[in-house]
């Protein structure tokens, strides 16, 4: 179970302080059984590889992938798009 500081607030639905910033509170992740089920099948090796990259490297890799995907889609017959 992962804990993190959440941005919602139980007493005020806006979750905001008077100066417009977000309130701190603890939220438990992983309490959704569907999410927990999906998490078992996550390929963490891909994620760990990405974590060792810089933000710039991750962004460039994603852009390359998206551009390649666009090219591939235009190469497919229309009925398969």
């Amino acid at each position, binding site marked *: 179970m*992962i804990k*993190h*500081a*959440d*941005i*919602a607030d139980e007493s005020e639905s*806006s*979750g*905001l302080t008077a100066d*417009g*910033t*977000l309130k701190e509170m603890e*939220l438990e*992740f*992983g309490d*959704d059984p*569907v*999410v*927990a*089920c*999906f*998490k078992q099948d*996550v*390929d*963490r090796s*891909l*994620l*760990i590889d*990405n*974590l*060792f*990259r*810089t*933000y*710039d490297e*991750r*962004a*460039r890799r*994603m*852009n390359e*992938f*998206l*551009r390649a*995907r*666009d090219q591939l889609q235009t190469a497919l017959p229309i009925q398969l798009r």
Partner: protein
Amino acid sequence: MAADLEKALSALVPAGVKFIVIGGWAAALHGSARSTIDVDVVYDRSRANVHALVAALQPHAPYLRGAPPGLPFAFDERTIRMGLNFTLTTSLGSLDLLGEVPGGGTYVALLERSLEVDAFGYRFRVVDLPTLIHLKRAAGRPKDLEPIAELEALLEERRRLEANNQLPPGA
């Protein structure tokens, strides 16, 4: 057209527009292996920023995504101020301009839950990973359940590597 963050940044950053990247691109920047279809940003609703936003995007033919052609849509300051969230097609790619997001509020509210990153030669803000997970949960969309699982696994791995001082600088 691809969700080209580089092109969106090339218009927004030099113009001084205040925004925070959220959504699929934020996930990718944090290390998600999933692809995305548009660029989602939460923009500052201040008058000066709306002015900068309109000036930055007007040359790129912004139009309402999915709307029939020929509607009298004017991408100007009045339109932005009268509205809030806009899903657009532009010559830069699909771009979602969000004045407010469920569970996250406004640009100002999200500011302290974002970090400054460098990519494509631009410096800009992206929502932090725990908050990104929260925003996806708050959106309440069934299609996000699998991406949420991946983001939570990503957060677990990041914290594990950080705890062991295994992450290189800038990662």
